């Protein structure tokens, strides 16, 4: 069964970094064969909103945010990996690998 990754990206203006980070995570997740869903909270509102079920079923949860996102309470009680937008934009694959190592899946 495919491993599942969910992530939430948000930045103060919601114009650029949010979407670049989302794209980087999606590309990295795809390259590693994950099922993935990335929520963005940008100028165009909330897109791809993560449901409780999405979060419940995820093997990896990532937050890449530079503001306090809406709906943060959805993640209470779950292990959330945090990475800055810049880190994700520059090296999403590397960060995903670190998380996998942390989880002992490699």
């Amino acid at each position, binding site marked *: 069964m495919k491993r599942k990754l969910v992530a939430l990206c948000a930045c103060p203006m919601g114009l*650029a970094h949010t979407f670049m980070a989302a794209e980087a995570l999606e590309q990295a997740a795809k390259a590693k064969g994950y099922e993935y869903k990335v929520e963005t909270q*940008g100028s165009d509102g909330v897109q791809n909103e993560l449901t409780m079920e999405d979060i419940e079923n995820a093997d990896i949860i990532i937050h890449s945010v530079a503001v306090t996102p809406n709906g943060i309470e959805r993640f209470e009680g779950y292990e959330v990996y945090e990475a800055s937008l810049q880190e994700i934009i520059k090296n999403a694959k590397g960060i995903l690998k670190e998380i996998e190592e942390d989880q002992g899946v490699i």
Partner: protein
Amino acid sequence: MEVFNKENIILNVEIAEKDLLLREIANQICGLGYAKDFETVYSGLKDREKEFETALGDGFAIPHTKSACIETPGVLLVKTVDEISWSSEESANVFIVLFTPLENEGNTHLKMLSSLSRKLMNSEFKTMLHISNDVEVLYQNILNALAN
């Protein structure tokens, strides 16, 4: 007003200092008719850089601002002759400038800007922006990036 036109492509800019380039960008945003108040646009761009530098690496930066004085969203492509030191670690000579009014949720123009941002993760697209100085090529590629 269109989000992007050929007039929004500004090449061979002979400015080598960050603050001067931000001024030039604000000047262009106003000159093209997207906003009227130069000072507000300029200080918006500048504050954004202070809060969160917009250098992306690979010679790219994405200065952006959201302000009540901006009338409709838009994009500029600015290329400088020399690389400008843009953060403590990065310099840049290709600038994708994004700007929008304050109130704009759910607007289709914002979808265009977000799809362009996503496209900036595509290395072929970035290489094209870096190498080409052909307005027609740059225009078509950015238009495509805005459209999906």
